[in-house]
């Protein structure tokens, strides 16, 4: 085996590629060759290293230095400083908090364990870190009902937002006999500020495939679909490549590993409607119809795609499955909290010093996530609120910084984990402005099927505009609450129901922001 003294991992996720990652990679290779270092230093592609707003990032091992905002013109000085002179190019180094490695926290990662470590386009890399062992074990050593039981015992809950226990979902479909069954992976990630699924798929597509295979075996589906939003071009390419490689290695197809089990996986692309993340709307869309939610019951587990039993799971949920099969339910239960075992992937955005991606055990407090993984607040700004759970989330105030974040604890505060987006807001921002964009989003993304969601969002939008324009009285606030409450109680699906969270939390926690518009006709700090 060839020996390299150093490895450069360059992140090539969608965002980095757009910012020139491939150009930087080529420049690096040329520069290294120029100095005859190409036999000593290896350049590899990998998934996201976990930093946002930092341009193209590269990691150098074993030195464990991460550079950000690397441009083609930096490459020659980077090579000469780091690899010839042996000292980091300090102005590009991403300063992490005191404990150097924590933002990446590889030791605690499950879903993202390989992301940023291996080449996502190489099945051999995945096999090299123990990939597809769980698939082999499930296929050759376990019965479908054992797999369902293991996942049930692990307490794995759906990471798409609602937190429904995955094993229980599977147990509805698994016993149904004599019909074609399907597994559908919901990769139609559309929650504002959320792109964890994209980074999981871009960084480690084989893990998602392995989870999908195990889920299909468990519920007896011989056909699985991955429904990805069409804008996720790189995900689609990498997953397709991964699927092709899996077929080539005999991990998919007919009579897999001579087990007698057949499975095909296919990618379906969505057209970008937010509502198609709702599982029944997603199924409608897959069937070629307009993406609007169906009446439940019957649930998809009984009558889903083409009226056949269909299990729909989120990407992050399924990416947990291989580790659960490999290491067992008890191991999984030891991570996180009793009601919500395992880890959660968050995207930390907004006014933090190091916006980024992190995977932490369930129950980690918001304060820890912001301070440790987000590097604290941006210089000179003070924490005001965090919008947790995406647009359909809740505005948390500083009194809730120490709440343990998991499904159960947040529910006690009438909050949700949602998609895992954490948008940190500094105290110069008026929450009314934030709320306006949240409502605007839902106003646009409502499918239009039901009155409370379609017309209610428009009413809310009109109200918030009226408040901002200074034409509203305090009674407008009661009216907003009443509308949001009606929407929650009468909307057909979760889209319209979830508006109450941001509206009510904004009104409860930040009423002064509204009053500042109403009384002074302008925001406090503007």
């Amino acid at each position, binding site marked *: 085996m060839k020996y390299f003294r150093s490895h450069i991992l360059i992140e090539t996720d969608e965002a980095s590629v757009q910012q020139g990652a491939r150009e930087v990679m080529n420049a690096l290779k040329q520069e290294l060759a120029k100095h005859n270092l190409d036999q000593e230093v290896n350049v590899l592609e990998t998934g996201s290293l976990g930093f946002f707003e930092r341009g193209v990032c590269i990691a150098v091992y074993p030195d464990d230095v991460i550079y950000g905002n690397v441009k083609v013109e930096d490459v020659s000085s980077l090579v000469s400083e780091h690899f010839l002179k042996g000292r980091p190019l300090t102005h590009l180094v991403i300063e992490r908090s005191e404990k150097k490695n924590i933002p990446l926290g590889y030791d605690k990662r499950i879903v993202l364990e390989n992301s940023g470590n291996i080449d996502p386009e190489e099945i051999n890399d995945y096999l090299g870190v123990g990939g597809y062992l769980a698939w082999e074990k499930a296929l050759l050593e376990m019965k479908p009902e054992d797999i369902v039981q293991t996942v049930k015992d692990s307490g794995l809950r759906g990471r798409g937002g609602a937190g429904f226990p995955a094993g229980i979902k599977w147990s509805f479909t698994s016993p149904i006999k004599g019909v074609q069954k399907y597994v559908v992976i919901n990769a139609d990630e559309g929650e504002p500020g959320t792109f964890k699924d994209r980074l999981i798929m871009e960084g480690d597509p084989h893990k998602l495939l392995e989870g999908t295979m195990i889920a299909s075996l468990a519920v007896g589906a011989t056909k699985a679909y991955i429904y990805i939003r069409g804008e996720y071009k790189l995900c689609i390419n990498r997953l397709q490549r991964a699927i092709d490689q899996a077929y080539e290695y005999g991990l998919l197809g007919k009579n897999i590993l001579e087990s007698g089990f057949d499975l095909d996986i296919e990618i379906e692309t969505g057209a970008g409607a937010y509502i198609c993340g709702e599982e029944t709307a997603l199924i409608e869309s897959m069937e070629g119809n307009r993406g609007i939610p169906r009446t439940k019951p019957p649930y998809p587990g009984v009558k889903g795609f083409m009226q056949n039993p269909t299990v729909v799971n989120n990407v992050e949920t399924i990416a947990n499955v291989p580790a659960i099969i490999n290491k067992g339910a008890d191991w999984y239960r030891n991570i996180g909290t009793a009601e919500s075992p395992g880890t959660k992937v968050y995207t930390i955005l907004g006014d933090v010093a190091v916006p980024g991606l992190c995977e932490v055990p369930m129950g980690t407090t918001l304060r820890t996530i912001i301070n440790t993984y987000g590097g604290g607040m941006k210089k000179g700004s003070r924490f005001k609120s965090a919008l947790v759970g995406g647009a359909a989330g809740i505005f948390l105030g500083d009194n809730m910084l120490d709440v343990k974040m998991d499904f159960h604890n947040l529910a006690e505060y009438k909050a949700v984990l949602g998609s895992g987006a954490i948008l940190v807001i500094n105290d110069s921002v008026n929450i009314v402005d934030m709320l306006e964009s949240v409502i605007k989003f839902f106003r646009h993304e409502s499918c239009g099927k039901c*009155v409370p969601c379609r017309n209610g969002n428009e009413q809310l939008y009109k109200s918030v505009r009226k408040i901002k324009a200074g034409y509203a009285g305090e009674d407008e606030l009661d009216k907003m609450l009443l509308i949001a409450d009606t929407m929650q109680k009468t909307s057909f699906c979760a889209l319209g129901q979830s508006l109450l969270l941001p509206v009510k939390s904004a009104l409860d926690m930040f009423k002064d922001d509204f009053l500042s518009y109403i009384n002074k006709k302008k925001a406090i700090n503007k």
Partner: protein
Amino acid sequence: MNKMINLMIDGIDVKVSQDTSIIEAASSVGIKIPSLCYHQDLLPSAGCGICVVEIEGQPLPKRACCTPVYEGMKVKTNSIELRSLRKMLLEMILADHYVDCPTCISNNKCDLQDLAYIMGVKTEENAPLQTRKPIDESSVSIIRDPNKCINCGRCVTVCNDIQTVYALTTVHRGFESEINTPFSKGMAESTCINCGQCVVFCPTAALTEKTHTEQVWNELLNPAKHLVIQAAPAVRATLGEEFGMEEGSLSVGKMYAAFRKLGFNAVFDTNFTADLTIMEEGTEFVNRFTSGGTLPLITSCSPGWIKFMETFYPDLADNVSTCKSPQQMFGALVKTYYAENKNVNPKDIVSVSIMPCTAKKFEANRPEMQDSGYKDVDYVLTTREIARMIKEAGIDFAKLEDEKADDLMGIYTGAATIFGATGGVMEAALRSAYYLITKENLPSPEIKAVRGMEGIKEAIVDVKGTKVKIAVAHSLGKARELMDRIRQQIQETGKSDYHFIEVMACPGGCVGGGGQPFQSNLAARARRGEALYKEDSELELRLSHENPAVVEVYEKFLKAPGSEIAHKLLHTNYFKRDIMSGDIIEEATHKH
């Protein structure tokens, strides 16, 4: 198989079969849950949310229209909170609805108006949300006013699920979402076959017929014009409803009286040409049947079905009878036979037809429908339109003395009257075809196998030892099923085993047509059909070939069924249409 479920609604024990929705279960014990988008004959669209109820043990209210019952379920249909939610939803709907009730065509017949009134909702409670959108007036039959649309989705359901025409859909999303034709090109540039079922099911006036009452009034009040009126079989069974009479009331005599009072110079009946149609179509069938012509023969009375066939099944165009519909046969005769007989200049004649149908407006405007040398039928009014005219004229319809139609084209048989119900044309045609083949009349004129509301009815009729296999389909979804079956038979064996088929575009036949009083449900349509069968049974003449006026028209003018002049005036040809726009591509048959 049909497991029974016990539940409790508002403290009343209810027992219903499983898969029943809460709203149906409640209705079975006489509890009416307020609702707006729900319609008993359609799958719930679950849009409005008005029908929310509380279910014990469930955190949020549920829609009664689409929530199935379960054992032990406890439902509360009213509470302070439910009332407040319903009112709030109604306010939201009204805020996005163009409220012009006094001049609205649906005034006093509007579900939204009713509900807002009953629940005491004020229109000014919520800020208006609406920006006015353009009205789609492209179609000759149907107007779509998006400003009055409440997005209930009934029209989309009936157009797509029941009629399988796919002319209506929801476009865009969010608050911009609206019901429109695919690609928003307008009704005229869609597959719309003008059946008007969307109009009948619309709870407001977002879909209405294109009205021609103004034009007809102007003609009526012009002394230089000679106005002739015909009324379709099904109108006599529904016109009374517009004046508060019970569903299924027959009002033939009052109808003629009202027409005269309005000022029509000649009051005739489409039933006359329905009998004539039987003579022509019956002859055509007998010819095809006995000389190995293209079979099955499919009826051609329903203009919605004709456009549907031209769009989706042009390959079966040769199977469709070349006979014009009774309306158009009538139109062609008025400006020839009647004009000669009465010595009136055909260019002064204004020919008006009263139809249960919106597609008849389209049919009358087809360019080929000018065989008299003039536009055969000048104006088509629906049952609803003529009712408005009668009201405007101050005529107290219910108190009118019965009158008779004028002789020349006003005499009809029971065979003609049942044209208005599904299966009626088939039954009438068999009565005469039997005679044409055997020179004897059927032992009993009633053929019960083709009556009733079942979607596809089939029978084998014994014509003195010869078996004739017939089928009757109503609603275009059922017609599609039947046509697919025929197409498959032809593909597999070269021929179909059916001989004669009746298709009506609307569920229930013409009594359920798109021009009939708003919101007719299937049960009401069945009652209207019964009224027609009752009239048939009470009439002395029940066989088309025994109609003396028909005998006379052949003797004096048309010579014989299928003669050259009959072909010129009473038969037509068909086209192949584009499946997206409904535009004519080419001729599918050639005029004989």
